[in-house]
């Protein structure tokens, strides 16, 4: 076989073809799709139909991503407390004559992912999906995760296309904060599924429509669902026509993978299968950072406490004992030792710098001599220890490391003449018992319960624990706290409608609870996550939520 030398013209053709091929390929390389892969702690993809399950992790991944509420959270700062800002409503106002009525002006020009318009009808429809039992779109499975987060809202009424009126059953200045939990889904899309659904009756058709909607949802958020494999993965694509141009995502796709096991998440990160994992195991932090990954963390609105029994005969009824316990724990030691830095020592529900912190006179810190003195004043000492029993769990959402942490407290409090006994039960059972209160047999004679809580809004953070009327079976005042000052301050905060004055009233309430040593405040979680060095632009706010929009990825 004879190989001919290329002639000049053949050479020129070859060069031209090579140039063209390069020209065609290069822009494609430049436009290579960027995919952010996240290993979640959830065992399953949180529900995608608008009201996610799995607590705030659900809101973080399938709520705030695909949907918006009338109000939202400002997640742009790592140093300031996250505050509520306008989202699908641009402004709101309580009625001067009737403080139970609120007017919300809606954001014009917003469309759902299916192209239908967001308007007052859509708001009314979305309120009724969880509050109006005879509405076709009413869905019992969404009520639990929504109604309790906006406990006073009773109805919505259209004023005009871009104005709605919301009514609460009592004056409630917390409503705009609570509305961050009500995500707006497209009624048009749901109706199309409902019309096509088969079922014995309207209720069955409605359930089928919601199931179909969950597989193909439409919200107004910065991310649109692309593909969903139950229990395995959720693929989201950026919404190029998002109404807030500043928050159009920088990466093309986001892939969410449920990985409930901490070691599996860590292995997935270290082997390059994912770019981001939530909650790495504390003992893996050193290895993760040694390999060049970043650990992001920040103080979360989260409290790891002992919630005291305050029924008759409880050892915690003596304020000296409550204060002694709060002064007896070396939280810095807990942080640096057991938790590898993944906590913030708690000196109340809110820390200094938060608008709801206030100015407590009792300073929660580690002061062993002061704690021992208080206990001696209360009649206890090395030869007369105070026996207390604590109900806790071996694991659980938000519980951090419940057993080792409680054993740490057990040892610390022994220095202050406490004899702590632990009653360890399964997490879901502990959670169920929390609702039942200390008087219920399920408390098993405990003097305190150890259930962590989110402190995103005033109701969840303070009111449900401190107001006397929130005792079981109404809400989570597990220990039956009955302090007229707290009740008075709750009412004051709820009925103060100027945001700054409301925050001040809440700060007063928080300060009062610290002064009263209402709980044994131990730690705040820091929402740790490990990120690949390829990730840029991420801001970890002081929140349960994060904004995925500014996140970009280098090749």
């Amino acid at each position, binding site marked *: 076989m004879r190989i001919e030398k290329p002639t000049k013209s053949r050479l020129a053709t070859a060069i031209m073809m090579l140039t063209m091929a390069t020209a065609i390929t290069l822009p494609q390389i430049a436009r290579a799709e960027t995919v952010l892969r996240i290993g979640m702690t959830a065992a399953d993809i949180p529900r995608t139909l608008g009201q996610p399950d799995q607590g705030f992790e659900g809101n973080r991944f399938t709520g705030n991503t695909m949907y918006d509420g009338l109000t939202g959270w400002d997640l742009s700062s790592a140093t300031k407390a996250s505050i509520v800002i306008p989202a699908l409503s641009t402004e709101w106002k309580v009625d001067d004559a009737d403080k139970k009525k609120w007017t919300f002006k809606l954001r014009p020009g917003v469309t759902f992912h299916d192209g239908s318009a967001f308007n007052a009808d859509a708001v009314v429809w979305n309120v009724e999906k969880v509050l109006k039992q005879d509405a076709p779109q009413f869905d019992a499975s969404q009520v639990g995760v929504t109604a309790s987060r906006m406990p006073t809202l009773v109805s919505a009424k259209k004023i005009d296309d871009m104005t709605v009126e919301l009514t609460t059953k009592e004056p409630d200045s917390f409503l705009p904060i609570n509305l961050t939990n009500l995500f707006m889904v497209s009624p048009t899309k749901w109706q199309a599924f409902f019309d096509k659904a088969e079922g014995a009756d309207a209720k069955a058709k409605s359930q089928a429509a919601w199931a179909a909607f969950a597989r193909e949802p439409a919200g107004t958020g910065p991310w649109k669902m692309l593909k969903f*494999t139950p*229990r395995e993965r959720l693929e989201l694509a950026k919404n190029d026509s998002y109404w807030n141009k500043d928050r159009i995502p920088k990466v093309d796709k986001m892939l969410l993978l449920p990985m409930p096991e901490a070691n599996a998440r860590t292995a997935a990160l270290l082997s390059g299968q994912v770019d981001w994992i939530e909650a790495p195991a504390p003992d893996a932090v050193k290895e993760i950072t040694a390999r060049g990954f970043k650990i992001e963390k920040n103080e979360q609105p989260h409290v790891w406490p002992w919630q005291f029994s305050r029924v008759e005969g409880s050892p915690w009824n003596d304020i000296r004992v409550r204060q002694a316990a709060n002064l007896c724990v070396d939280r810095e030691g807990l942080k640096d030792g057991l938790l590898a830095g993944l906590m913030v020592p708690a000196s109340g529900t809110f820390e200094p710098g938060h608008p709801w912190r206030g100015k407590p006179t009792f300073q929660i810190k580690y002061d062993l001599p002061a704690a021992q003195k208080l206990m001696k004043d209360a009649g206890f000492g090395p030869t007369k220890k105070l026996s207390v029993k604590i109900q806790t769990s071996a694991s659980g959402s938000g519980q951090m490391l419940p057993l080792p942490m409680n054993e740490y407290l057990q040892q610390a409090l022994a220095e202050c003449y406490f004899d702590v006994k632990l009653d360890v039960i399964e997490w*879901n059972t502990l959670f169920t018992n929390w609702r039942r209160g200390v008087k219920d047999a399920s408390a098993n004679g405990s003097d305190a319960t150890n259930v962590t809580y989110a402190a995103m809004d005033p109701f969840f953070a303070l009111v449900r624990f401190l107001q006397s009327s929130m005792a079981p079976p109404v809400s989570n005042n597990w220990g039956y706290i009955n302090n007229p000052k707290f009740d008075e301050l709750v009412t004051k905060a709820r009925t103060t409608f100027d945001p700054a004055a409301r925050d001040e009233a809440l700060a007063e309430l928080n300060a009062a609870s610290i002064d009263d040593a209402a709980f044994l405040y131990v730690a705040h979680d820091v929402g740790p996550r490990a990120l690949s060095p390829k990730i840029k632009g991420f801001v970890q706010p002081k929140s349960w939520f994060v904004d995925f929009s500014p996140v970009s990825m280098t090749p």
Partner: protein
Amino acid sequence: MFVYIARRIVYVIPIVVSVALVCFLLVHITPGDPLVAILPADASQELAAQLRIAYGFDRPLPVQFGLWLWRAVHGDLGSSIATGRPVLAEVLRAVGNTVTLAIAAAMIGFTLGLFFGLIAGYFRDTWVDKVATSIAIAGVSVPHYWLGMVLVIIFSVQLNWLPAVGAGPGGSGSWGWDWEHIKYLVLPAITTSVIPMGIITRTVRALTGDILSQDFVEALRAKGLRETKVFRHVIKNAAPTALAVMGLQLGYMLGGSILIETVFSWPGSGLLLNSAIFQRDLPLLQGTILVLALFFVFLNLLVDIAQAAIDPRIKRS
């Protein structure tokens, strides 16, 4: 043979009903609220009662069981409390993934188990036997979740050869039998295969040794049969027992291993069971246990029938 099969099928019915009853009662007598997955901690009693009625948990247990069994017989295992999705679809999808894993693990475990068992039996009390037996004992003794983690650390984290978690680049929904998918299967399948491999090795070793010491083997050798033909007779005699053991092991593997599937985030029935337990998702928990129990019962039935087909003495007994 037909009468034998019919009789075995009739025996299965009360077993299935008993299994259904036990799994229904077990998940109901455990403490905690079945609605905990969707009921927030501060839910009012009114809201809790409303949801309890909506999900039928307000009815007496016998009524709940009757309704559940009636619907189950008609192929309806209800809907998951946490996700609202039909339980049957969830379980079948997960079982499909577990079957994929079990097949791969069975291929590894059975092949190695037979190989080690036969050579250990043939070369009894030699160093070959000792090595094979040691491997078998290690297979049965090593905690498989620990082995899984070790394999992940070596092959995923350190060497970066194989993925640490998941069921394929696009999830199990896009499964294919190509290397891009099979590489996700390698580590969980090896981990899952270790116990059956050990058990089969030990069983086959004992059987082989026992058969080789029998008179008919001496007679076969005395007749001048080549060792390969003697070997065939040994295998034929060992097959029914080995098959029964393999069937049981396959049953265990199809039941899913909660720990292995959790370590590798393999979306099979074990991981589903784990998630149902943690979310206290009663319909999902009941449905998963029922389907897995049925798998186990029917697999045993198939093994029994296969044994009878191979060895007529079993049918007669």
